[in-house]
């Protein structure tokens, strides 16, 4: 690991990676450290994957302003620059009772105040034109055509790689252990070594308060809020066109039903404040709440064809209920980007824009890097190609002729590409998030041994060193016959 940098970003989620990528436009030395062996393992990993239109967030809050701006930046720039699946499916907030109508009006007004374009309230058959499989007792819906969906994994990986292409250094398994405030600079002690930074950006998500504590900042506290989800098989024949919300109540935002960029249906989340930032466990009660909630808008949903249950944690600052994005008054050169709960993914480009502004102020001006290249292209997607395109791809590289994941038609070529990118994949789950082997209905039953084998060969490590997710999550224990041979030795010694 290098020992000096202009800017050190802590956290390899979408917030940190977006900041790294936006800062790499300038003539700066950028370093990003992530504690896990993979990007995108915290809040970014498990959320609803929405680019909210911006009608729900309070205009008085940072959230409200940044959501709208973020949505705009996705439309104007990100979708053109980065090879990331973004679809503008629109969102519907569905009211089934008369008494919910004022709330719908309120959302409309709030959205208009936030500057969300083309909002309208639709009624009767117009609702069903937008969403034919909606429960048949909908009376009105707020339609937000600028709402979208994005693949948060691919987005984060694209941002990190694009930043790396433009000179940023990304270190994985480099968890921050301590930070020493040396006045002009900060000495950041990581699991990979010490690094001295002029500016530290704290984008540590669920751990942001602990990182801030390291330099003596204790003005905020992160409360993890857990949300649980069900994901359905692509072939489940559940026809959902848009992102469907119920009208929020005071106690609950309600369960969302949305398509994903790959054509699955995702439902969730519930919201439960929990104690531990490590507790990503799903629960019977939580999952039942999710399904019951989702059935209120899309009644045909059931447990049939569910291919995955998961839970994600939101890092909320409950005191304000808002994002906290500011240079610390107490510790110069330390920027907190914390409390990035919903709509954090939608706001991410705007958050990065704001961070750039703060850095500019801190340093006193930034010089653009003339060589900055905003474009990034990820591994090809075999599954989305015509047979002609597939034929051409395999002619160029034989590895695209070897299908590793049969459910999702993922080739060896794509997996190798994911490993060989500037910020390459190192874990089974990272590969799954980037190029999808194991994301389908068999959940890796057939392809996991093959992915383990490819990782082992490419990384030059034995297969039992290959991990699922965290450093400790080894998949295999011992070579078959080893335990018997060892037993033999033990009894020989006796």
């Amino acid at each position, binding site marked *: 690991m290098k020992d000096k940098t202009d800017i050190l970003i802590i956290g390899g989620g979408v917030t940190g990676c977006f900041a790294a990528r936006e800062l790499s436009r300038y003539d700066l030395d950028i370093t990003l450290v992530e504690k896990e062996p993979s990007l995108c393992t915290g809040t970014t990993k498990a959320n609803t994957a929405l680019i909210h239109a911006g009608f729900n967030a309070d205009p008085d809050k940072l959230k409200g302003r940044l959501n709208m701006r973020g949505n705009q930046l996705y439309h104007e720039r990100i979708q053109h620059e980065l090879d990331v699946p973004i679809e503008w499916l629109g969102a519907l907030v569905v009211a089934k009772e008369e008494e919910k109508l004022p709330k719908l009006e309120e959302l409309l007004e709030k959205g208009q105040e936030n500057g969300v374009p083309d909002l309208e309230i639709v009624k009767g058959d117009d609702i069903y034109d937008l969403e034919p499989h909606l429960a048949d007792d909908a009376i009105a819906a707020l339609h937000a055509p600028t709402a979208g969906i994005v693949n948060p994994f691919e987005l984060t990986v694209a941002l990190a790689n694009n930043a790396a292409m433009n000179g940023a250094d990304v270190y994985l398994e480099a968890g921050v252990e301590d930070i020493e405030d040396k006045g002009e600079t900060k000495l950041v002690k990581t699991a990979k070594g010490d690094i001295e930074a002029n500016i530290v950006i704290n984008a540590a998500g669920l751990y942001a308060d602990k990182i801030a504590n390291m330099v003596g900042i204790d003005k905020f506290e992160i409360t993890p809020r857990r949300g649980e989800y069900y994901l359905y098989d692509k072939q489940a024949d559940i026809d959902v066109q848009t992102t469907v919300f119920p009208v929020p109540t005071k106690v609950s935002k309600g369960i969302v039903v949305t398509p994903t960029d790959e054509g699955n249906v995702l439902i969730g989340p519930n919201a439960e404040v929990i104690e531990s930032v490590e507790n990503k466990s799903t629960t019977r009660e939580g999952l039942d709440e999710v399904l019951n909630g989702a059935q209120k808008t899309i009644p045909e949903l059931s447990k049939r064809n569910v*291919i995955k249950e998961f839970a994600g944690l939101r890092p909320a600052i409950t005191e304000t209920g808002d994002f906290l994005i500011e240079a610390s008054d107490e510790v110069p050169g330390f920027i907190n980007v914390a409390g990035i709960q919903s709509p954090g993914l939608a706001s991410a480009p705007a958050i990065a824009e704001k961070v750039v502004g703060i850095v500019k102020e801190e340093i006193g001006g930034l010089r653009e890097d003339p060589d900055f290249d905003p474009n990034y292209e990820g591994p090809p997607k075999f599954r989305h190609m015509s*047979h002609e395109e597939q034929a051409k791809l395999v002619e160029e590289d034989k590895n695209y002729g070897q299908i590793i994941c049969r459910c999702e038609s993922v080739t060896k070529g794509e997996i190798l590409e994911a490993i060989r990118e500037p910020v390459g994949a190192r874990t089974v789950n990272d590969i799954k998030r980037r190029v999808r082997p194991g994301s389908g209905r068999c959940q890796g039953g057939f392809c996991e041994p093959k992915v383990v084998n490819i990782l082992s060969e490419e990384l030059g490590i034995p297969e039992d060193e290959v991990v699922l997710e965290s450093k400790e*999550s080894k998949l295999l224990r011992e070579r078959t016959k080893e335990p018997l041979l060892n037993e033999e030795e033990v009894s020989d010694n006796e």
Partner: protein
Amino acid sequence: MNKQEYELVVVGGGPAGLAAAQEAYDQGVRDILILERDFELGGILQQCIHNGFGLHYFGEELTGPEYAQQFMENVRERGVDIKLDTMVLEVTPEKDVYAINSDDGMLYIDAEAVILAMGCRERTREAIDIPGTRPAGVYSAGTAQRYVNMEQWIPGEKVVILGSGDIGLIMARRMHLEGAEVEAVLEIMPFSGGLVRNIVQCLDDFDIPLRMQQTVTEIHGKDRLEAVTVAEVDDNMQPIPGTEYKIECDTLLLSVGLIPENELSKDAGVKMHDVTGGPIVNEGRETNIEGIFACGNVLHVHDLVDWVTEESLVAGKTAANYLQGGIDKREQEIEVNPGENVGYIVPQKITNDVEDRKLVDLYMRCKKPMEHVTINLYSGDKKLLDKNERRVEPGEMITFPVPEQMISDDMDSLKVDIVKEGE
């Protein structure tokens, strides 16, 4: 694109595909191609290294690889074309087959007939909706079987197995013999879906407890599996509050059912049956799409590979007839319907007029175990045939041969029920 023509393309080189190809060849078809996604033929039998295969078909007890090798040699001797490491991407209703491998690139095969023999896959933790964390160490039994028996890796040291079907039982013995500790085998039903022989020889022999009407209700562990919560269930398979207990383990193997793998079939426009999860077929194993056949576990999950072979020989033979001038159809299609305590019957209909046929085999599963039963075959209200069995259970397929001469032109449906003897 590499364009080729074949009379018959067989998708899958496991026991079903091999037997079907062999029989089609023996019936005179010479232009046959088997497409297999693995690096060798034999399918899942190659990892089923235990004995118990072939008692019906060969009259001797073989291991999975031995059974497979017999058919592999048969197709090789006959000179059937084989492409390994080749994944079929699409079968169109017009029987164009798109497949890919590293050496040929994209293959576009214009086939006159297609036999679907892709087998099945295992149900997952997700499919049975177990809450908890998502650590390493949760495997389907088949994945673990591949690791232990073929890849030479043991996934863990302290094992709990959920599901007492034969794969679960077999893996309990394998893990034990290879030095792992098997804490328990759990079964949500009040009866095991596995053979009695396997319960004795895989569990009792090694004092591995089999706990009935229990299931895993939560998975624990941040990085690697640390424990599972187990609860007793009521007769509706719902966990009974207060009965929960924890078992510490680093590995959970799931043997919770198999699902025919029909994504290709569906894309080809083949109609599926709700209960079997496989195509709806006639007695020749032909689907609703003329010239597309299905056999083996892609059609319905079998208990014994011997039945897979028998069924695939039928499919191979009918495919050959189809290619050699067509199949004569009966004037009236006969529906085959499950009656009391019958879960499903394959074939779902009898449509062909075949000259030299003596028997039509009906394959079926009962819904619940029963002792001393009579299996009755009806045409309308008229009983045609019955046979007695000492015991039936859902885990075991029942074969019911119907003599050809009993099938008459005026029939439009057959029904089978399973009732207590003497009722």
